[in-house]
């Protein structure tokens, strides 16, 4: 039984995006729709989420190896305004301490800020460090790695060093999965690379960091259509291809997200899949019982589809181009 996309999107908004997720809820949903309509499904949800003050990250399985959790994190990270979040956090600290900084006041203009606070630039820097040590670095809702990275980013925002790559640039390279200077990163008190062992926790912390900075949370929209695509890859623009084993690894990643919603807050992951997700004899979800059991609707109404189900089937009407 299927649901109309518009109806389901309305339910998703009302039951998840409007209040549940902003208040700390988390969910993983799988939406199956006809081949080639995955983008339309995600567009509908993206529009709602963006209206509601979420950070929305779109991931295309044809461009990102989504069977690797750290690649999922990097894809999300590249769509996150880390510097903007650091600036927002800093401005909130100034405001909480009675310092009204107008939007045009640059945070790296310590002299300007010092004049407003009637203290020296050095004293201002001291205050900022104190807020970071007593506030950010003791906010145990975030993993230590993210606390350290955000602390260093905040310091880099107010006191940028005139050397390239700057501290902020190196931190962003680390967060984005790009090559970075190991020696600079170590000077910033970060000693571990981002990998399978910590990527999920960083995603968890990112969702919380967004909420701390006044957003509703993190919505990840994963277009998994490519996993089952039979279309030959364009050699000019090669796409990621998924073997059976890679697909099973992706199922494991999704299963872990479902099992670990305990630790997730302010988070929604929506995976758009084609019907092959259910029916492919080699790469369908029946090949991975642990995920199948979590998303199949063993208990269901005879006549109506459950719009709150972990997995739904959607009817998507795609307008033929004019």
């Amino acid at each position, binding site marked *: 039984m299927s649901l109309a996309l518009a109806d389901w999107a309305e339910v998703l908004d009302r039951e998840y995006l409007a209040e549940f997720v902003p208040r700390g809820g988390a969910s993983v949903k799988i939406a199956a729709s006809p081949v080639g309509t995955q983008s339309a499904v995600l567009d509908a949800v993206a529009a709602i989420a963006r209206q509601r003050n979420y950070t929305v990250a779109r991931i295309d399985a044809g461009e990102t190896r989504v069977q690797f959790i750290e690649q999922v994190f990097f894809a999300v990270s590249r769509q996150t305004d880390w510097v903007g979040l650091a600036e927002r956090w800093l401005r909130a600290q100034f405001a909480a301490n009675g310092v009204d900084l107008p939007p045009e006041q640059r945070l790296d203009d310590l002299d300007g800020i010092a004049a407003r606070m009637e203290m020296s630039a050095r004293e201002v820097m001291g205050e900022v460090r104190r807020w970071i040590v007593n506030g950010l670095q003791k906010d145990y809702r975030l993993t230590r*790695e993210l606390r350290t990275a955000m602390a260093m980013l905040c310091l880099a925002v107010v006191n940028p060093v005139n050397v390239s790559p700057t501290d902020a640039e190196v931190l962003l390279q680390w967060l984005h999965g790009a090559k970075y200077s190991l020696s600079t990163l170590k000077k910033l*008190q970060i000693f*571990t690379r981002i990998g399978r062992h910590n990527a999920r926790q960083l995603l968890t912390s990112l969702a919380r960091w967004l909420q701390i900075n006044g957003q509703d949370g993190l919505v990840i929209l994963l277009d998994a259509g490519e996993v089952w695509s039979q279309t030959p890859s364009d050699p000019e623009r090669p796409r990621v291809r998924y073997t059976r084993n890679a697909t099973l690894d992706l199922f494991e990643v999704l299963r872990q997200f479902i099992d670990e*919603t305990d630790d997730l807050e302010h988070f929604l992951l929506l995976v758009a899949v084609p019907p092959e997700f259910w029916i492919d004899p080699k790469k369908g979800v029946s090949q991975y019982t642990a995920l199948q059991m979590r998303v199949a609707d063993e208990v269901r109404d005879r006549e109506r589809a459950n719009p709150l189900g972990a997995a739904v089937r959607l009817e998507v009407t795609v307008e033929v181009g004019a």
Partner: protein
Amino acid sequence: MNGDKVQRLRAAEALRAGVPSRDVVRFFPPQQRDVETRWENVLEAAAQGNTTPGVLLEGDFGTGKSHWLEHMERQALEANFVCSTIVLNKETPLHDANKLLRAAVENATLAGRSGPAFSEIAYSYRSDTAPGYTVLFEWVHSPERDPRLALTLQLFERTRDEEVRERVIEEWTGFPMATGEVKLALREAGVTGFSVPKPRRDNALEKLEFLARFFRSVGYSGWTLLLDEAEMISKYSQRQRGRSYAHLAQLLGAGKGGVHGVACAATITKDYAGQVLYGRKNDMVNVPAKMEHTRDEALAAPAVAGMRFIERGGTDLRPPGKDAVDQLFERARELYSEAYEWAAPPLTQSA
């Protein structure tokens, strides 16, 4: 929307996926008094730094073994333990104690904290303020201990270099530093008059006890290990099964096993003894015989203890009776009604 409603909605989400999450277990705690009592005793003994046999839950698929582990984790976290839940699989096999140790460290959680627990604890560790540091110091310096533990603890305490501290943490969790690296770091930290032995490869359980004591030294009650799907042992080779039974005994405190400060529970399918210990594989006879005169000989006695524990020491999970099922339905209906502010009608049985 208040926090209470969010918790109910979270539980409803988890119930849809059939996942025994913390929120589900909060609203549907498992009910079997003998298991509850036994686990309370295990936690109490570990909190006192003692050992007592752990809990081995036996049950068929769907009898609530993982649900129980989630409940036990919640109780342990509330009792101020560091907790690690490990699902045994090909990447975390019971026969490889080093991989078990690493998985336990990676999965360690603390109440109220995000991220790997050990990293959180070690990062803020100060020997001058850790209330149990003297006890830890004395234990690590006793003659039967691996001397590298004492040396690296001293390095951890003395160095101001965060990167060196990170490397020491990695050493304790199964990735040893090069001996030259340790020597240089000790010298730079002002420690002299030492010799650095090579790292041992076979002391994962000693490191486990060291880490449990490390946690206790800063005020935690100890370390809880929850091992899910111990029936994976049946998929290993005979030698690996022998090592697995030995490690299970050592962690569960069967025979002369037990790790001070560690509370352990594990799950296993109900028919394991019949199928594997006495069935075609006949491990009860073949495993100890095969271990004699090999490098695993020292594990033969613990392996037998582990197999005996599986045979006789497990606790059967009893499926709920009709009354209990009816109560669960009613609880689920109440939960749903409160979560969605809608009076869900009672279930009716169809013919």
